[in-house]
């Protein structure tokens, strides 16, 4: 049954991909949807058995690589962490499958789309169920590949091609870090199995790698490499540029990639490796700094975006920042809880955005929408639920995880142990709560409530989607309301034994109890900030404040943020173009086609005719010249015979220069 969870999506992918032209649209849709739904039900069973009943499963299929002490097998590990991810992935994936049946119904390549969605799900499942690093890497790369295929689904569009390549290449930078991490793990532990590594990691907490006389703590190095991998996949600050561009794919793809699966892989990696990075203070600090910066930066960028999907993409980036800095303050279970909750309301937001885009005939610019509340009341209410959940409105899903993360950050700020990074996380996290609420409600106002800017025709044609698209939305809406409340005690309740050994938190770093007893004002703070954001969005959108905002400073700030802080331009100017130029001018023109050619075939083909011409010019036709050479030759010959080597060398050098 456990393996069936994995094989079913693969089966569906193979059927829809290879037999799509025989099965037709309907056949391939039915097969893929049935496969992924079965997989979802089986993963519910797995969640019951592993998560609730506490029966961890270890399945070994077959040996894969056995070289010396390196033994890698195809084997699967189902513990609490894995089954939580399984449920999240399969639920979101099934709903996205169902949703895209109608969303993509007029697309001629529906079987291919279904196949790609299924293969994405399959690789994601491989990633989370693997019990060694190499098998996890298979899933990791497979997810990257599937994201390439999906973003590039409309392959005739230039922008889609570019962003797919960008996504793949930027991800590959992180993958490089991850592969270095795998090699380092093998070097230190002589094994890549999770269980071996995790049980040995306390012993290696004082292990130092001697790197040319410099001693590097081994676990820190591994943690940094894993973090680089997570930066690429989870779009943390630095490698985040691919995520907003990946919106070129169809909307269900964005929901799948950015809500539930791909971007969570990086956070999942950090949570999975909690027994390892928990022993390295440096890595935890790096996580906190990068995570909180990402949360803040993406939140602020999201405020000034005008593309419906891009706003939600930045919000994903921001929430991933929350998850990463929650890992950094050693609250892996809270991070995981936020991951699961976020999957539900972000999928809801994306799919509702898809519904809006669908209703307006592929219009994505929020400035050309408005007053859709009258035409899409159900989508509006669902999107409102999603936005409230995202903003952490009390008693919705986001509240239970996000506010708890912020409370833990407050503990990190207000205790006297590690003030610096805790303060960083706390300030930036709280500020981004404000931005989150602001851009969510800016989106709501611009899309649904303000007076419309859309054309008359598109407004008249706009309609609620049919039941096939609404069902997943409604399910996700219920999920966004109730999952947090239902899961709170299980995942992050005081003294819950749900996680067992899948997450390790050192008692030194644990602040759960303190978080329950921080002062009441601090507990109110996130709610007040998000309420402030909502109120501000309301004021700006209902009154004529824009009249007062036409000053140059504000406009230049808006421009800066709306251009994503010029990250892309800076990257292009200082990294991409120099590297491309280097590749063309130095590697290709100067080395490959220049120097090496010159030393190789091209150079010889030029050199030998020159020399032969030179030699044939020596034969001038003058008898006296010939005589000169004859005598010279006799002299050389005599020199050789009488072994006057230095003289010989001298004369030959002389001759060469003549």
């Amino acid at each position, binding site marked *: 049954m456990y393996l069936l969870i994995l094989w079913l999506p693969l089966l569906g992918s193979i059927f829809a991909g290879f037999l799509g032209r025989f099965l037709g649209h309907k056949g391939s849709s039915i097969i893929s949807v049935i496969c992924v739904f079965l997989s979802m039900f089986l993963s519910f069973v797995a969640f019951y058995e592993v998560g609730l009943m506490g029966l961890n499963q270890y399945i070994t299929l077959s040996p894969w690589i056995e070289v010396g002490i390196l033994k890698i097998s195809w084997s699967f590990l189902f513990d609490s962490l894995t089954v939580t991810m399984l449920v999240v992935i399969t639920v979101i994936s099934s709903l996205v499958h169902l949703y895209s049946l109608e969303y993509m119904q007029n697309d001629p390549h529906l079987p291919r789309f279904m196949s790609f969605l299924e293969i994405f799900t399959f690789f994601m499942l491989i990633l989370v169920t693997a019990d060694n690093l190499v098998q996890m890497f298979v899933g990791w790369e497979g997810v990257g590949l599937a994201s390439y295929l999906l973003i590039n689904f409309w392959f005739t569009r230039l922008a889609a091609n570019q962003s797919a390549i960008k996504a793949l290449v930027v991800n590959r930078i992180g993958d490089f870090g991850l592969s270095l991490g795998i090699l380092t793990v093998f070097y230190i532990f002589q094994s890549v199995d999770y269980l071996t590594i995790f049980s040995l990691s306390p012993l290696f907490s004082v292990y130092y790698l001697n790197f040319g006389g410099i001693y590097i703590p081994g676990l820190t190095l591994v943690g940094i490499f894993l973090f680089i991998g997570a930066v690429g996949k989870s779009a943390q600050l630095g490698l985040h540029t691919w995520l907003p561009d990946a919106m070129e794919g169809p909307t269900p793809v964005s929901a799948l990639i950015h809500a539930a699966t791909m971007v969570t892989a990086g956070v999942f990696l950090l949570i999975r490796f909690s027994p390892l990075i928990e022993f390295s203070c440096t890595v935890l600090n790096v996580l906190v700094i990068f995570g909180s910066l990402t949360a803040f930066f993406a939140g602020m960028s999201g405020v000034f975006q005008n593309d419906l999907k891009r706003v939600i993409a930045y919000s994903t980036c921001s929430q991933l920042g929350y998850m990463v800095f929650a890992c950094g303050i050693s609250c892996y279970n809270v991070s995981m809880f936020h991951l699961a909750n976020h999957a539900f309301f972000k999928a809801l937001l994306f799919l509702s955005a898809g519904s809006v885009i669908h209703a307006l005939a592929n219009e994505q610019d929020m400035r050309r929408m408005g007053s859709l509340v009258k035409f899409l009341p159900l989508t509006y209410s669902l999107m409102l639920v999603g936005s409230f959940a995202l903003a952490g409105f009390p008693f919705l899903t986001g509240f239970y995880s996000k506010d708890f993360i912020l409370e833990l950050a407050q503990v990190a700020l207000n205790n006297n142990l590690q003030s610096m990074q805790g303060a960083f996380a706390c300030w930036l996290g709280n500020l981004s709560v404000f931005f989150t609420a602001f851009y969510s409600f800016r989106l709501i106002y611009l899309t649904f409530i303000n007076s419309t800017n859309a054309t008359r025709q598109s407004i008249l044609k706009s309609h609620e989607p049919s039941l096939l698209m609404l069902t997943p939305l409604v399910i996700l809406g219920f999920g966004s309301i109730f999952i947090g409340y239902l899961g709170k005690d299980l995942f992050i309740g005081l003294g819950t034994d749900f996680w067992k050994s899948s997450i390790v938190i050192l008692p030194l770093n644990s602040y759960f109890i303190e978080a329950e007893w921080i002062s009441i004002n601090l507990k109110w703070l996130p709610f007040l900030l998000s309420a402030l954001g909502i109120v501000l969005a309301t004021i700006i959108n209902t009154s004529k404040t824009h009249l007062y905002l036409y000053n140059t400073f504000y406009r230049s700030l808006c421009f800066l943020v709306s251009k994503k802080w010029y990250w892309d331009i800076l990257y292009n100017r200082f990294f991409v173009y120099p590297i491309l130029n280097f590749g063309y001018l130095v590697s290709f023109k100067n080395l490959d086609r220049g120097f090496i050619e010159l030393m190789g075939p091209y150079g010889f083909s030029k050199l030998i005719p020159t020399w032969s011409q030179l*030699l044939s010019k*020596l*034969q*001038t*036709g*003058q*008898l*006296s010249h010939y*005589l000169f050479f004859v*005598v010279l030759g006799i002299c050389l010959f005599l020199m050789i015979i009488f072994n006057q080597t230095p003289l010989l060398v001298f004369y030959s050098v002389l001759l060469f220069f003549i």
Partner: protein
Amino acid sequence: MLVFINSTNPSILLFLISVLGIFLNQKNILVMLMSLEMMFLSVSFNLIFASIYLDDVTGQIFSLLILTVAAAESSIGLAILVIYYRIRNVITVELMHLMKG
């Protein structure tokens, strides 16, 4: 030893003079041929001196052979020269550059 060097010195000097004669002469092919003859002469001198010094007749036999060879060669060379002159009407060495590389 002293006697040998004293006797061979003039002949080697003669050889070098003839080599220089061939070398430095740019125009007249007759002078070249004469220098060639002089070379043969110096070589024969050397052989004769050596045969006297070593008290061995082989050197003299060789020098006789060289004498005949030199005679035959100069006759053939002069014949070629005559034929060449008949065709080209000029025997200046500088202008003989038909065998340019």
